[in-house]
């Protein structure tokens, strides 16, 4: 036997449940554009039907329904897609940074252009060729000084820009470390909040959304593993636990660099921070080394030259091959390789010798300043250091101050005290101008012309940058794809919410109508029955 008011209770439950569903629809619509929001749905179930208890079953057949109930409000989400998204997001992060760095490197190299190192180098060789036509001309000398200085300046500038890029990357890493720590402690806090709320049987849907969003963001910065436990998300970077339950550990630039290790076997394998450390350690460092080698090779790298017959070199010059020389007294002897050149000796035949770069070559010749001193090194070092690098290379300031100190001549006339330099001899200027196609040996043992060294760098940069751009596009596409799949599951569709709204609204109206009907029934029973004979 059912209660008189049974159906009023049934109608009430229906009203409550449809209202809850409508509210949830409203919540979904409101958050349609909220980042990281997962649509929610009310899980409705028919309420437990009545079965009268007692010694015997009710005599009426069947079970009497008691309306509807909602057990929970669920998020609609697939964790598999989350994991996939985070993996792809990580590599997107690292490729984005790498292609960004390479892009910056390309603008530092600034090729092809009228202002890049290659033009500066070409101008340098040209100025020497010009000087070879007018070795005594002070204008041509000034131009050589200018082009040499601008070559050194260009190398310095590029080296400084590479340093700045490195500094920027280091700064960004520490900013990212702070960001990571923020996310880690938020996730740990959320773990705790969610645990508290859900232990009372509720669903902390919106907090879970937040936690997933934080995790997504974190995945772009570093590669993470997420394991889901009863106490929340445990997050690790390779073998390192970053969040365990309610406790978060923190990272720093140093710990991240340690996690990067050698870039292959370390815990840090992708993500923006990986991209930054990798950019700095691999690209920037590599180009800096190559640029340093190039500057060093031009100045001091071994190169073989041929000194023409008739050349006179300052006393004490050392050649690396045996040379036949006419001594000051007119006798012809063979000067053994490695022996010092006697004063006033003239080469009796062409001889090949190896010199240490343009510096070494310049020191074989005579200057215009009236002395019989050998030339000074063309390039010197600013500041400290014993090795010429792109950062410290400078055109010898002594020569810049007195262009007569540029050596162009390999000939003297007269002997003894009346010996003086032949100004019109341009042998050395020609030799230096010809070195634009000279094969230099870099400290690394690689041989090539100065232009080849540079060309190789630019070509390599082009390939790396092209590759990084392609990889970035690919990862971006993959992230978009996975995110679309995720959105397909979890995203709010306004059309769907609207149709749900109609359904819930109608259900609500119908429940209300049912209640009215029952009300009318009772009204009939109470107010319109039992009035016979009144």
């Amino acid at each position, binding site marked *: 036997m059912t209660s008189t008011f049974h159906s009023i209770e049934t109608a009430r439950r229906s009203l409550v449940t449809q209202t809850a569903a409508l509210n949830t629809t409203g919540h979904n619509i409101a958050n349609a554009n909220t980042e990281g929001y997962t649509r929610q749905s009310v899980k409705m179930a028919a309420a437990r039907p009545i079965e009268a208890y007692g010694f015997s079953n009710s005599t009426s057949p069947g079970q009497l329904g008691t309306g509807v109930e909602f057990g929970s409000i669920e998020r609609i989400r697939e964790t598999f897609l989350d994991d996939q998204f985070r993996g792809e997001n990580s590599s997107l992060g690292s490729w984005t940074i790498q292609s960004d760095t390479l892009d910056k490197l390309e603008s530092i190299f600034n090729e092809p252009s009228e202002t890049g190192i290659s033009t500066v180098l070409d101008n340098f060789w040209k100025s020497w*060729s010009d000087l070879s036509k007018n070795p005594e001309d002070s204008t041509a000398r000034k131009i050589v000084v200018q082009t040499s200085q601008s070559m050194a300046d260009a190398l310095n500038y590029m080296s400084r820009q590479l340093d700045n890029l490195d500094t920027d990357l280091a700064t960004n890493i520490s900013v990212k470390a702070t960001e990571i720590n923020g996310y880690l402690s938020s996730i740990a806090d959320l773990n705790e909040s969610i645990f508290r709320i859900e232990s009372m049987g509720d669903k902390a849907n919106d907090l879970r959304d937040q936690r997933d969003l934080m995790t997504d963001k974190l995945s772009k910065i570093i590669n993470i593993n997420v394991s889901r436990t009863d106490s929340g998300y445990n997050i690790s970077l390779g073998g390192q636990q970053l969040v365990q339950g309610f406790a978060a550990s923190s990272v720093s630039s140093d710990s991240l660099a340690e996690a990067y290790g050698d870039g292959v076997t370390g815990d840090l394998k992708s993500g923006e921070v990986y991209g930054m450390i990798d950019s700095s350690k691999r690209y920037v460092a590599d180009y800096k080394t190559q640029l340093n080698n190039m500057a060093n090779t031009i100045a001091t790298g071994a190169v073989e030259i041929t000194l023409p017959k008739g050349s006179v070199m300052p006393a004490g010059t050392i050649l690396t091959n045996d040379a036949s020389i006419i001594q000051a007294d007119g006798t012809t002897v063979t000067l053994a390789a490695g022996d010092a050149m006697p004063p006033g000796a003239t080469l009796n035949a062409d001889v090949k010798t190896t010199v240490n770069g343009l510096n070494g070559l310049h020191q074989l010749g005579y200057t215009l300043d009236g002395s019989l001193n050998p030339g000074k090194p063309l390039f010197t070092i600013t500041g400290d250091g014993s090795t010429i690098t792109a950062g410290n290379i400078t055109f010898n300031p002594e020569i810049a101050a007195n262009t007569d100190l540029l050596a162009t001549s390999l000939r003297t006339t007269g002997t003894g005290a009346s010996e003086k330099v032949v100004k*019109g001899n*341009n042998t050395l200027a020609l030799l230096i101008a010809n070195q634009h196609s000279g094969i230099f040996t870099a400290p690394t043992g690689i041989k090539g012309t100065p*232009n080849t060294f540079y*060309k190789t760098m630019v070509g390599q*940069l082009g390939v790396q940058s092209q590759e990084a751009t392609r990889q970035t596009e690919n990862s971006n596409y993959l992230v978009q794809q996975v995110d679309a799949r995720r959105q397909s599951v979890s995203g709010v569709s306004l059309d769907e919410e*609207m149709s749900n709204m109609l359904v819930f609204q109608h259900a609500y109206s119908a429940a209300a109508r049912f209640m009215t009907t029952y009300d009318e029934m009772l009204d009939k029973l109470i107010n319109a029955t039992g009035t016979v004979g009144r």
Partner: protein
Amino acid sequence: MLRVTSNMMNAQLLLNLNRNARNMNDTQLQLATGRKLNKPSDDPVGITYSLRYRSELSANSQYQENVDDAISWLEFNDTVLMQTGDVIQRLRELSVQGANGTNSQEALNSINAEVKQLKEQLIDIANSQFKGKYIFNGQQYDVQPYQFPTGPDGTLDTSTASSIVTDDGLLNYAVGDSVQLPINITGNEVFGGQDGDNIFAVIDNISTALVSGDTSEVSSQLGNIDTRYNKLLAVQAEVGAKSNRIELMKNRLSDLEVNLTDLQAKTEDGDYAELLTQSKIQENIYNASLSVGAKIIQNSLVDFIR
């Protein structure tokens, strides 16, 4: 079945719009610079070629400059040698005249006066300067080769002219990759160094003979004049040959320049017809995606529910 939400469509639309805009931007950049190679990653292989062509073009333009300078030197050499030839021819005429035994001593004296003038002129020629350089003094072109002390009579004492040794250093100009060309000739080659037919010595001999009326000695110098003249012609021929060689070099360099510029253009330059077509297509695609975007964003069920 895949659920599609309006946010997904928006995201997709944005992605496509962005991609189309980027393509358009790339094409615009190529159109604006006229180059398809604007940074190394545009064509990593092309960039190495591009840099090579650029530096070869730069070296080539320097060689062309050097060639032009060499040509003007050689032309000047040629002019000076012609002048020398003219003087020697005149000297020969005077010598033939002076060798004739019928001349009076007065006539011989006046011939001698002209011969002396010729010597002065030859010395002037021998001290020719080109762009401030004494062309007949080898690498010591900053020093005047035929310098004389002032004699007792206040004029220059040129009697030592025949014993002057000019510098034999070569002025080499680089006119190609490891191609060097000496562009100067030495004074001794032209006027005779220690040779018996040193033109100054010959003139001095003729002068002395004319003064003493020794016509046979004048006549015997005719042979020396002829050998000197022939040597001069040989030098002139050499200068001519060098000029030809350098003209060839010049042509070769300008051909090379055309070739290199052509190769550079192929590597670096954009094809306008192609780029403009591409740009137009990309513009259309972009417009299409914009209008599609406007349509998909408009409608949802919201618009149809009362």
